[in-house]
């Protein structure tokens, strides 16, 4: 079944308070050497607090573009994007950086940890850009690492950790600022099936604790962990289904 929109949104409206992500007729066009590529062609998507959404779609369907927009790494060509009751689609670079810092926790397929820094320092990174003092940073980073079950690996460097542990460090880093959304891009793409299951358990725990999660994946059995699956095709939403957990 296709999920109905939570709100009949029109330009000029503001989203309802429990809607974390609201995109309205979002388009994104790239100029590829004189040829205009329309990666997104009007995506309207609403995600409520504490939803667990998987975004699927074949390559070229626009799911990466959508992720970049939701993650405030990119701005749309037209359309609106509201994140946590704030219209972010027309913010400048530095303002977007603040939003990324405060509202979004990224988890990447390739973990993207700083290789020479300890797990603790990696997790502290977003807090440095948030301007927190050293003591506070450390306390929060320790707490985040405890939440993903890595309290005993804090002083290890990434190359001293297994793939699953590395991804858990990355999740701790994503959580440390207590973001509105956890944005995961193929989080199990570089992991074996056992470790993937382990990470999916972490996600499930976080979801239970109230975390809003948006996850891009092309694996159906990973998408199956989410409560809602949005499928993109040719730059538009093809299906949007809720499923039993």
């Amino acid at each position, binding site marked *: 079944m296709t999920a109905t929109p939570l709100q009949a949104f029109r330009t000029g409206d503001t989203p309802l308070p429990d809607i974390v992500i609201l995109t309205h007729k979002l388009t994104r066009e790239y100029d590829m050497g004189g040829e205009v590529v329309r990666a997104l062609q009007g995506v309207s998507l609403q995600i409520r607090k504490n939803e667990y959404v998987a975004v699927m779609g074949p390559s070229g369907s626009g799911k990466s573009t959508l992720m970049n927009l939701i993650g405030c*790494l*990119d701005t749309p060509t037209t359309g609106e994007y509201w994140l946590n009751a704030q219209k972010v689609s027309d913010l400048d670079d530095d303002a977007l*950086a603040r939003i990324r810092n405060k509202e979004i926790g990224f988890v990447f397929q390739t973990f993207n940890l700083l290789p*020479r820094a300890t797990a603790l320092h990696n997790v502290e990174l977003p807090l440095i850009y948030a301007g927190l003092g050293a003591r506070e940073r450390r306390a929060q980073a320790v707490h985040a690492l405890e939440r993903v079950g890595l309290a005993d690996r804090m002083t290890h460097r990434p190359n001293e950790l297994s793939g699953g542990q590395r991804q858990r460090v990355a999740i701790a880093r994503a959580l440390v600022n207590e973001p509105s959304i956890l944005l995961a891009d193929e989080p199990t793409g570089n992991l074996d099936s056992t470790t993937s299951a382990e990470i999916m358990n972490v996600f499930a725990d976080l979801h239970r604790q109230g975390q809003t999660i948006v996850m891009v994946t092309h694996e159906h059995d990973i998408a199956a962990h989410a409560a809602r699956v949005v499928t993109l095709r040719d730059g538009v939403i093809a299906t949007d289904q809720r499923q039993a957990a």
Partner: protein
Amino acid sequence: MPVFEAFRLALQTIRAQKLKSGFSLLGVFIGVASLIAAWSIVNGVNRYMTEKFAQTLYGVNTFQLRRRPMFAANVPDSVWRAWRRRPRIKFSDAEAVTAALTMPVVTAWQSDDNGSVFYGGKEARDIQLVAASERYFEIKNLRIAIGRPFTAQENRSGVPVAVLGDAVAKRLFVDRTPLERSVRIGGIGYRVIGVVEKQGSVLGFPLDRFVVVPAFAPAQSLVNPPGVVDALLVKARSEVEMREAMEVAEGVMRSRRHLRPNQDNNFVLDTSEGVQRFWAGISQILVVVLPGVVIVSLVIGGIVIMNIMLMSVAERTREIGLRKSLGARRRDVLRQFLAESAAIATVGATFGIVAGIGLTLLINAVSPLPASVSPMSVALGVIMGAGVGVIAGVYPASRAARLDPIAALRQE
């Protein structure tokens, strides 16, 4: 990100990439080290010149009446030719000036030229042959090690006696005593009556290669035409009295030479200030050349740092993308890379300072140049080093700051 964090991070990166950082700070290192070493040499020689050299050559409160200055730098040909046309100082001039000086002064005549001194089959070449009057030793502060100086009578009557410099005595007599032996100068035998204490050297020039004979001895004809003296040395008790004596001497000479008030002196009253002016002329050249050397090495250092930083930005594109995705603003990234290049340069400058000071001490120890570290050069070294780092870092850092996080994250 606070500045402190940026520097902490920068130092971490430098520690992690020792080799690369080592190469990149080489330029600044060399620049700052050469700045300090060269500056220290100039500084040291300067002080030496003003404090010691001038005093050694001229003596305290002493002036010399001469045809032309003993030391002169950057003298145009026309001036040289004019100097050469000037009349020489005659015995009669020297006597008249001496007679006119009523204040208590010590005077001596001096003429000199280079020549050889022989003893037996041995020859001491390139020796300063000095024909001087008896108070010369006193004015020049030459203490006699063995034997005695010649007397006023010996001087007047031109007795062929000689007082040797330490190097000449060693060259001709090795370990034996030179006293009462006869050395030959210009084919005439001179009885050695004394040897002067070892004087050492100034700026590598030995001060012990001389022989002093009486002004009226036959050797006078070797160093000057008859009746001519190179210099009249006048030593006063104080600077004030020296100035007075100089005025008297000037008046006497001008009237003897029939100079009208609008005519310039055709002689000089040379003091240690003259030597200092001469040195100032030379050090001015250094002051022009030295910054050139330093600037060239700092520019090279800056280019090297810029290159390394560009490499570093390219290598760490992914890291920059990640930092941006975690909330780093442009200015955070800019600051991080600026801090890094400034830190590299400052570390280079610090090593440069240590090496520069070391080099200075080494030069001081093994060479005749009396180098001494100038605190100004150290301060300037730090400032210039860090400045080069910041300037060299601007372009790479702004490139890093402008990176698109999506493209940066996608890069392998």
